[in-house]
């Protein structure tokens, strides 16, 4: 998480009509809080996390903690008070509104084919939630179509570099890779993963991996294009791109929530 954690009160004091919790996710255990009540809640435009869990104070639940999940297809309108004067049981923590990712993120993930000496880089998922302070009839929750661009890479000599991109809830991706190194080929591949709760140090972690484009040499001056559709390839938590050359090799990935953007 970013530090210090974004707080809702400065948004309220400065007369913003909303509180935006926009922070990179560093581990799946990050829990964020808001000490302000809200009239509507939705996934923010820049979120890579698709499903966001919310907890709020409810007198009718034994622990006083009620849960709800919002996503790009389901926001929530209705007043929820931050019950700062009350406490959850048995933790004894103030009854604020809590947010955390319902999607699993594993920063220790390594592909099955990961060999000693290989390198892996993660684009950390952005956790973006918007809490509105004023009543709204409805909230438009879809996320933006994100665009990721890479060009030069730090690849260990004779090894493979893996780049992991968040893909939670996305239904479409366009991948465009061109080898602009005029001398060496670049072995390029695409796979995807659905994270599992597992021990990454074990020889058999439980993550589910799918090969989308088997690694193959891309000759200098040539390109590879691939469209990934949920109806054809499935839905994944992350996309994994593998390369063997430092480039230059422009790699552009557009992701969208709709299968036909």
């Amino acid at each position: 998480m970013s530090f210090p954690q974004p707080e809702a009160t400065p948004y309220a004091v400065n007369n913003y009509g909303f509180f935006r919790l926009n922070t990179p996710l560093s581990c799946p255990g990050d829990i964020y809080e808001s000490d302000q009540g809200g009239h509507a809640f939705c996934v923010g435009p820049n979120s890579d996390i698709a499903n966001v869990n919310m907890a709020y104070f409810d007198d009718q639940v034994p622990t006083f903690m009620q849960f709800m999940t919002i996503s790009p297809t389901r926001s929530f309108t209705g007043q929820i008070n931050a019950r700062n004067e009350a406490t959850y049981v048995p933790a004894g923590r103030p009854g604020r509104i809590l947010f955390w990712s319902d999607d699993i993120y594993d920063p220790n993930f390594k592909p099955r084919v990961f060999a000693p000496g290989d390198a892996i880089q993660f684009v950390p998922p952005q956790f973006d939630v918007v809490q509105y302070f004023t009543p709204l009839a409805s909230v438009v929750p879809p996320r933006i179509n994100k665009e990721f661009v890479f060009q030069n890479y730090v690849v260990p000599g004779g090894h493979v570099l893996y780049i992991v991109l968040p893909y939670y809830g996305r239904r479409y991706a366009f991948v465009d890779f061109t080898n602009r190194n005029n001398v060496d080929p670049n072995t390029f591949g695409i796979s995807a993963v659905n994270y599992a709760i597992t021990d990454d140090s074990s020889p058999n972690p439980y993550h589910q991996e799918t090969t989308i484009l088997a690694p193959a040499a891309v000759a200098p001056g040539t390109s590879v294009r691939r469209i990934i559709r949920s109806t054809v390839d499935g839905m994944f938590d992350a996309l994994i791109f593998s390369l063997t050359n430092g480039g230059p090799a422009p790699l552009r990935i557009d992701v969208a929530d709709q299968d036909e953007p």
Partner: protein
Amino acid sequence: MPALPPVRSGKLAPVSLDPSVAQVRAPAATTGDAENRNEVSTYLTKPGGTQILYNADRMWAKVTLTLKTAGPVAVGQHANLTPVLSGRGQLLQTGVPTPFNVAKGHRLYIAATSVNPVAVLIEAYPWLETITGLAGAASGIVPAAPAKMLSAGKVGR
């Protein structure tokens, strides 16, 4: 020698300066210009406890409050409004101006569980003070005269 400014009477009724004598200030029969001025401000609620939002020691006033965030914020004339959701005060609705008429000698209290901006508009009722003052003065004179005349047996003769 320059002319002295005209003598103006105070806007408050005269009171005794004897500290050993308990007294209540009488309503003023006149108003000052400052009392006709509206007060416009934004109040930031403080989490926990009940705070005094407006103190009507000298003047009747209409206090209009508009909650800018979700709250909850309770307002009332009891000194203890907590817990905020207990019903001891009225909960403000977001974006809805809510007027309260505060009589002289009373206070308006506010309580919240978080920091919330509340738009405050205070419109004094100086004429109400004046009317009360005049009515009080008149009530001290009018009933006394006929009673004295009647008791003297001089009416109708």
